[in-house]
């Protein structure tokens, strides 16, 4: 699948924003602290930036508002609806922190639930596509949720590095997210494709089916969008880079922050960990698209 940069940026940034907002909503950060106020602003900005970015790949972005209408059947529409709804409690919680320096528990929990709901919908958009074997698994939304939580927790830890609990939570979330992703990726390589050139043409009875002549000589929308291919060795290298830079190094940095003598130092180290994690996630997200094979490839010998 073609990795559209706008979607990669959107799902990574707003994922982190929603993760941080969920943790803020639960009240894991001291609402009176100035850093928490900055954390609220960061979460909202990340979410907003992601949402704006997500409209960039549309053919007709000015009609994007229509996307909230089909929540009965479409996960993309549900994502849109929840994203709009989530803004209300999330901005509310942020206002409470900014103006009164306190945390409203009910509004906060509502915001956290909606924030995670958006991320779940994002994952389900992909998991509901039977035509893409790598994506059609409940592990897909699980990975999206865990990565939102891990990036949110790392950001939260950076805003409140004095909290050992928060640093430990970030470490736990980081481990859980990459563990789930490893299982997801193992499944992707092991899964038997649902369809084959034989079933795609219905000619399997006659023998092995191979594309003899494509319907067009140059690329078209389908081959560009669905037939995207990368060299396997680059994929393996990128995966190792993502795992190292987005998982192992941030984990080591979090451990370092746990034993750092001063909170300021711990804060810097935790912020570095969060930044690296986000960069690693961008690579992970790129691979999520680039490595996924679409059923239409069966018609194109790819």
């Amino acid at each position, binding site marked *: 699948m073609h990795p559209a940069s706008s979607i990669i940026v959107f799902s990574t940034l707003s994922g982190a924003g929603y993760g941080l907002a969920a943790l803020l909503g639960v009240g894991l950060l001291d609402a009176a602290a100035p850093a928490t106020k900055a954390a609220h602003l960061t979460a909202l900005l990340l979410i907003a930036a992601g949402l704006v970015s997500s409209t960039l790949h549309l053919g007709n972005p000015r009609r994007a508002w229509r996307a909230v209408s089909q929540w009965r059947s479409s996960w*993309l529409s549900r994502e849109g609806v929840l994203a709009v709804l989530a803004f209300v409690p999330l901005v509310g919680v942020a206002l409470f922190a900014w103006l009164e320096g306190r945390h409203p528990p009910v509004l906060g929990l509502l915001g956290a639930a909606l924030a995670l709901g958006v991320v779940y919908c994002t994952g389900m958009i992909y998991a509901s596509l039977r*035509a893409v074997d790598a994506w059609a698994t409940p592990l897909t939304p699980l990975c999206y949720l865990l990565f939102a939580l891990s990036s949110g927790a790392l950001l939260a830890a950076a805003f409140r590095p004095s909290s050992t609990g928060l640093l430990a939570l970030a470490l736990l979330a980081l481990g859980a997210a990459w563990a789930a992703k490893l299982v997801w990726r193992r499944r992707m390589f092991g899964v038997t494709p649902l369809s084959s050139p034989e079933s795609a043409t219905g000619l399997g009875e*006659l023998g092995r089916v191979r594309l003899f*002549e494509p319907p067009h000589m140059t690329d078209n929308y389908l081959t560009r969008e669905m037939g995207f291919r990368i060299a396997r060795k680059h994929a393996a290298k990128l995966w190792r880079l993502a795992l190292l830079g987005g998982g192992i190094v941030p984990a080591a940095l979090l451990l370092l922050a746990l034993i750092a003598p001063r909170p300021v130092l711990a804060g810097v180290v935790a912020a570095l960990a969060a930044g690296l994690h986000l960069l690693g996630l961008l690579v992970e997200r790129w691979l999520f698209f680039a490595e996924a094979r679409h059923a239409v490839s069966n018609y194109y010998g790819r």
Partner: protein
Amino acid sequence: MTSLPSLPTEKKLGLVIDLDVCVGCHACVVSCKEWNTGGYGSACSDQEPYGRDVSGAWLNRVHSFEIIPEGGEVIGEGGQARIVHFPKSCLHCEDAPCVTVCPTGASYKRASDGIVLVDESLCIGCGLCAWACAYGAREMDLAAGVMKKCTLCVDRIYNATLAEEDRIPSCVRTCPTNARHFGDLGDPQSDVSRMVRERGGFDLMPEQGTAPVNKYLPPRPRTALAPAPMPQEGEASPEGFFGWLDRVLERL
């Protein structure tokens, strides 16, 4: 509404494509583009039509596949493989995933005749329906930023201003070998339904659970080739005039 019709549609209009007859001439591809670029919705635009990287939105494409039987060889070597030309357009699935994923309601399936259509004035061009379609039946029009797909020539089949024989999809009307047939696959008495029954018509990728309406008819079993299609030198002696000539030349 992107929810699918709850009841089976009154009619199941669709195509039956005979893979035994198709010669891969691409006439249906061209006539489809020609009709639909001036018909329903925006034109099917081309990008760099006279340039190096020609591409554009087409609603019907013809692939050619080589089928190598068990133990057979690639064509040109053993001569046992066969080529099947394979036209492919929207199958107007009963359980169309392209419809349910649409966030705006632009994609819909008509309850009256089962045709899957795009209301281009609602389409935001997100491309998710094209991702949801296992068959590659949808292509984005890059100029208009909306999704294009086969409409089953909805602007022909009910068009009272056309002559009766023209009220069929453009691809069907054009096919010079009669490989394409149009009709109501929901009516067991229709010509297309009978054809599917008699020839063993099948679905593409039934495992995707989309329940396509369009059906494909398999190539008929090939006539068995002679063990050695080309006689080898000295194998058979000619008869008649050439036999006499042969004998005379032998004696010289």
